[in-house]
């Protein structure tokens, strides 16, 4: 089990530094994606974007038949993202085009101790 050290206790991570913040990693399969924009609409923080539309636009007037473009996770100037691994986009995606590679784990002060890196679906014990 991970330990919470004295450095962790004292150091607050810088929120846009990729070394301090391990954010989740989403992979969009362009072959399966029908560009419907559902994932952008459902994302909690508005951190999925495409080159064509923003979340506000998808939200207000997304007409059927309009292609939203293949989404990607928005990166800040420093290269960090805001994805928190809720995977709501993956649950909503009608084509199963989204997969998740990594969990969300801030470092130092906000380090999570009992969560491991493996992501698993509910298991029937």
């Amino acid at each position, binding site marked *: 089990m991970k330990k919470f050290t004295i450095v962790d206790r004292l150091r607050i991570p810088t929120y846009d530094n990729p070394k301090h913040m391990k954010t989740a990693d989403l992979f969009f399969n362009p072959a399966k994606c029908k560009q419907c924009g559902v994932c952008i609409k459902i994302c*909690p*923080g508005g951190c999925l974007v495409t080159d064509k539309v923003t*979340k506000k636009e998808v939200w207000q007037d997304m007409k059927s038949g309009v292609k939203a473009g293949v989404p990607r996770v928005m990166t800040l100037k420093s290269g960090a993202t805001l994805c928190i691994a809720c995977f709501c986009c993956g649950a909503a995606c009608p084509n199963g085009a989204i997969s998740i590679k990594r969990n969300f784990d801030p470092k130092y002060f*906000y380090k999570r101790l009992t*969560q491991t890196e493996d992501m698993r*679906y509910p298991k029937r*014990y």
Partner: protein
Amino acid sequence: MSVQEEDLSPLGKYEEGMPWNPVEKVIFERRSIRSFKKEPLPDGMIERILEAGRFAPSAGNMQPWKFIVVKSPEILAEMEKDAVKVIKFFMFFLDYTRGGILRRLFILSWVKWIIRLMKNKLHPVPVGLMSQIAQGKTSVFHGAPTLVLLVEDRRGVACPPTDIGICGQNMVLAAHSMGAGSCWIGLVQVLMYLPKWRKIFGIKYPYKLNDCIALGWPNPKADGMVPREVQLVQWYEKGLNDAPRVTKQGD
């Protein structure tokens, strides 16, 4: 990934590895819904959802809650506007991820002390969300047609916030089992900085507003199972001096 009706187990039974039962299906497939249809749920359905909350367990049966249902589009629009205003105000002082290098260095010189003092409210996740809201990239209440404010009575037994959580979860599961969508919104707290909203909703001692639930018809339907981190669980099964057995829950 959605479990079909015919594959479900009956309630009140357990066998190893048996399929999910309807209650588990609702629990595992509940996703926070953040885009709603314009028309609200029928009043009868909202009352039925509130009924699930009324019968939630609470410490000492004190029921330390008060429900406020907000359906007026005018009030909802005003709440959204004011919440964005307050968030923009705070993010002007706290968000170091935007703007020039001088602004960043100046804010970083003191913001981490504030984070230490307000570690829950300024966790990286809400700060990222509020930064997005301040930039106009997402909204606070997701255009929900109905908000249920869960007001906490601070005189409740033991730990009233826990009771509020149990009560709200009952309501959310009930809503999803009937095909509605819901989302917990803690950012309603920012409205409590404005005396105007405290007065409108009558939030004064002993009441406190920490959370609200957005209710509505989901658009599109987005319930489904998702993967979550495998958890390390400690089992204390032997003597006082023995180390606990650690298992990987979900692996």
